[in-house]
């Protein structure tokens, strides 16, 4: 009966809510007195329960209800937050996640899971029992005050509850049916009389059939307490006006009720009489009291309440503030729309085509040599560039959400390992492409676990090394030269070079006596089948993983490397491209071939001759006192064709390294839509993809990181040979 798409929305929303809930749960341990956090947890549980109810997912409703009841007590301050409670709430959260997963897959939970749920519920219920006694005076709404005037203590004779409900316009849209509450109410007692208020329904032409304009006046016979009856309306409390008067309430309260409701007083009074809530005499006295008040002064209802000593000023102030907050929250929510990721992909694809087409037009305009046309294509391409940027920005999300998930990982893993580890997050607002965010989660999890397991030492070792007992793990992100850098660092023992090298030799990953730089040794841990952990824990240490991490990151056109200081800790640095689709490119020509270098990585262009005069074609030039290794793209990529008159060097930077690429022609900036290379060419080093130029030609995109790696490697090997040579020379002497 429920269309799949709605269920899908439920699953997505629930998952989001569960994430928020988890985040809040992890925070609440640190700040148990912050009402906002507890409210956030409560709201999440509450909303999940509400929407699960809509879909008839009773097992979720039952379970969430138990959790919510406990949270409600926490909210009202009846139960204090402690780590045991948080632990069981986190367990409840996990269980809910499992249930939602089941819904997503269209399965109903197995009896085993059911049993587990029941156990959790009874665990949660023990909290409720503890507070039952403190809850023994549930009926009174307003405790009569000694100073209150006698007229107000007059109570009406009815034995029935009176409920006044006015539903918000969005009730239907939120998927709720007002009558379901009536039915629910009927399970808590007998509905003596129900009057449906249809006065608010506008005339046919102004009426939106999907808005709710209904209200109910209900007279209910029930032995339940006020809280139970209120709870019936949990799901709609936010957008509906609900007034509940217990039996034998004071006349003044009915007066307020009538005063507050939007309908005319006479009409309401008669409804109350018809509901059996008031006798006609009582109504008269209510209305009389009302008119007296009216004559006195037209005060705002809040002031009236205070004057009648019903509510103290601070309470009202708090209530008003709360209302404002709720309003603001709603506003923020309304500014967001959910868009199918596929639509965005399509948009970006189209923008890509637009760029290619625009480049074509530009070319024709130049060829035709029409200044007007050239000018207008220039404007056009500027606009297209802006469209491109904002289309790409649509896909950008902050990495904070991903980072925050690790609070939980760190908490769980540190418990499992018996280590005390703190997670420090920085750069959470750094934005990157959503696809990248989604794919980076798993590798990051692995790195984080690895750092906790192998990096950070046990408490005793830390003490003996003079470090604080609490280990710290840092997640950091920042933008750098057109890429995003994510760092996972720990203050643990660092990598042991000897151990890694020995292991690598043992595993035949490197030949004995090979010359390796520190960096190369560290990077050995990313080789397949490598693990130095002496004990295999169930987290890491099996030697699978780090190579998978590297492969995953490489698949995103990223790189990963390690920096480590023995005894002080290590930092794993992941560098990823900001986006996977379109870049600003710098076009260069080598022979007859056109190459594109990502513009973000280009630092400057210089003429080769002006900076170097060595005829032996050295590998480095002196750039304002800096040693800059350079290579001819022609040699590197085996390009044919005539050599240009003047060779130019494009200085590129990636990470901490700079290098020069010697090319024949500099052809200027070009917006580049990256197309992946076919399977046949995927192994090609130094080429990251291709793009189509305005004239229909194909240009290859230079994979700067991989070129740079090669250059770095050559340089390092050379240096080492040099140092070896000089050392052996010294030994001879």
């Amino acid at each position: 009966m429920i269309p799949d798409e709605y269920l899908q929305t439920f699953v997505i929303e629930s998952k989001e809510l569960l994430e928020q809930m988890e985040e809040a749960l992890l925070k609440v341990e640190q700040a148990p007195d912050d009402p906002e956090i507890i409210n956030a947890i409560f709201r999440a549980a509450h909303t999940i329960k509400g929407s699960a109810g809509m879909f008839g997912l009773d097992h979720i409703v039952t379970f969430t209800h138990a959790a919510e009841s406990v949270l409600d007590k926490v909210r009202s301050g009846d139960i204090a937050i402690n780590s045991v409670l948080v632990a069981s709430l986190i367990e409840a959260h996990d269980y809910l996640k499992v249930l939602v997963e089941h819904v997503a897959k269209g399965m109903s939970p197995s009896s085993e899971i059911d049993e587990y749920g029941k156990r959790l519920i009874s665990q949660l219920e023990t909290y409720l029992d503890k507070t039952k006694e403190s809850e023994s005076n549930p009926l009174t709404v307003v405790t009569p005050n000694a100073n209150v005037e006698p007229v107000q203590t007059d109570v009406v004779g009815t034995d029935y509850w009176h409920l006044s409900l006015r539903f918000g316009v969005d009730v239907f849209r939120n998927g709720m049916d007002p009558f379901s509450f009536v039915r629910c109410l009927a399970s808590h007692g007998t509905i003596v009389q129900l009057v449906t208020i249809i006065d608010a329904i506008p005339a046919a032409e102004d009426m939106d059939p999907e808005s709710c304009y209904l209200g109910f006046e209900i007279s209910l016979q029930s032995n339940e307490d006020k809280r139970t009856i209120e709870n019936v309306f949990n799901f709609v409390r936010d957008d509906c006006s609900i007034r509940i008067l217990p039996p034998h309430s004071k006349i003044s309260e009915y007066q307020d009720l009538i005063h507050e409701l939007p309908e005319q007083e006479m009409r309401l009074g008669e409804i109350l009489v018809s509901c059996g809530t008031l006798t006609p005499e009582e109504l008269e006295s209510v209305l009389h009291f009302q008119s007296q008040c009216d004559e006195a002064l037209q005060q705002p209802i809040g002031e009236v309440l205070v004057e009648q000593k019903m509510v103290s000023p601070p309470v009202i102030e708090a209530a008003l503030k709360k209302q404002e907050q709720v309003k603001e929250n709603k506003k923020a929510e309304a500014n967001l729309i959910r868009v199918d990721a596929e639509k965005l992909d399509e948009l970006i694809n189209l923008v890509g085509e637009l760029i290619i087409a625009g480049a074509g037009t530009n070319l024709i305009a130049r060829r035709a040599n029409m200044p007007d046309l050239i000018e207008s294509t220039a404007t056009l391409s500027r606009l297209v560039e802006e469209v491109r940027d904002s289309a790409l920005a649509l896909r950008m999300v902050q990495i904070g959400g991903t980072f925050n998930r690790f609070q939980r990982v760190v908490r769980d893993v540190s418990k499992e390992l018996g280590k005390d580890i703190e997670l420090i997050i920085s750069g959470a607002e750094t934005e990157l492409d959503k696809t990248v965010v989604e794919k980076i989660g798993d590798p990051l999890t692995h790195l984080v676990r690895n750092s906790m397991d192998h990096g950070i030492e046990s408490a005793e070792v830390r003490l003996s090394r003079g470090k604080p007992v609490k280990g710290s793990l840092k997640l950091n992100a920042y933008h750098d030269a057109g890429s995003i850098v994510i760092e996972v660092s720990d203050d643990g023992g660092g990598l042991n070079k000897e151990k890694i090298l020995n292991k690598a030799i043992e595993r035949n990953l490197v030949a004995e006596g090979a010359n390796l730089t520190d960096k190369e040794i560290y990077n050995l841990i990313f080789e397949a089948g490598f693990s130095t952990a002496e004990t295999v824990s169930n987290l890491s240490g099996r030697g699978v993983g780090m190579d998978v991490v590297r492969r995953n990151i490489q698949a995103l056109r990223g790189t990963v490397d390690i920096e480590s200081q023995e005894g002080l800790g290590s930092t794993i640095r992941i560098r990823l491209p900001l986006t996977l689709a379109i870049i600003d490119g710098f076009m260069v020509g080598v022979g007859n071939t056109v190459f594109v270098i990502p513009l973000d990585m280009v630092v400057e262009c210089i003429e080769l001759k002006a900076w170097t005069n060595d005829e032996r074609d050295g590998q480095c030039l002196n750039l304002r006192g800096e040693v800059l290794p350079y290579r001819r793209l022609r040699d590197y990529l085996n390009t044919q064709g005539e050599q240009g008159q003047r060779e130019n060097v494009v200085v590129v930077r990636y990470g901490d390294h700079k290098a020069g690429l010697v090319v024949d022609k500099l052809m200027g900036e070009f917006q580049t839509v990256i197309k992946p290379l076919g399977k046949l060419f995927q192994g090609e080093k130094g080429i990251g993809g291709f793009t189509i130029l305005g004239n229909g030609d194909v240009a290859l995109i230079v994979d700067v990181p991989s070129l740079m790696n090669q250059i770095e490697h050559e340089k390092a090997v050379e240096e080492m040979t040099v140092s070896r040579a000089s050392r052996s020379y010294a030994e001879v002497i």
Partner: protein
Amino acid sequence: MAKSKEQNGRITIKGELTIYTVAELKESLLAKLLTNDELVLDLSAVDEFDAAGLQLLIVIKRGAMALGRVFKITQHSPAVLNLLNLAGLTSLLGDSMLITPEIILEENLA
């Protein structure tokens, strides 16, 4: 989905008369109301009926009154009757008699 079958001033609603269908139905019912002096709504095949559906019936009923047209509801299905009973609106929407403004007012108060 609800399907309405039309036939000279008579509309049969099948399936749902709920929040999922009211937007569409409102338009077609109002249009029908404008072109016919008398509109009869057959609810015998309605198997789901909710508050949104109820609201729609009220609006159409009032609209008909304002236009001076006749709007009758016949053959209430159990689902419809059930909700009308719960809402205490059987007298307003429960039969096919001609409703005048005075009667509505009284019935609301009753």
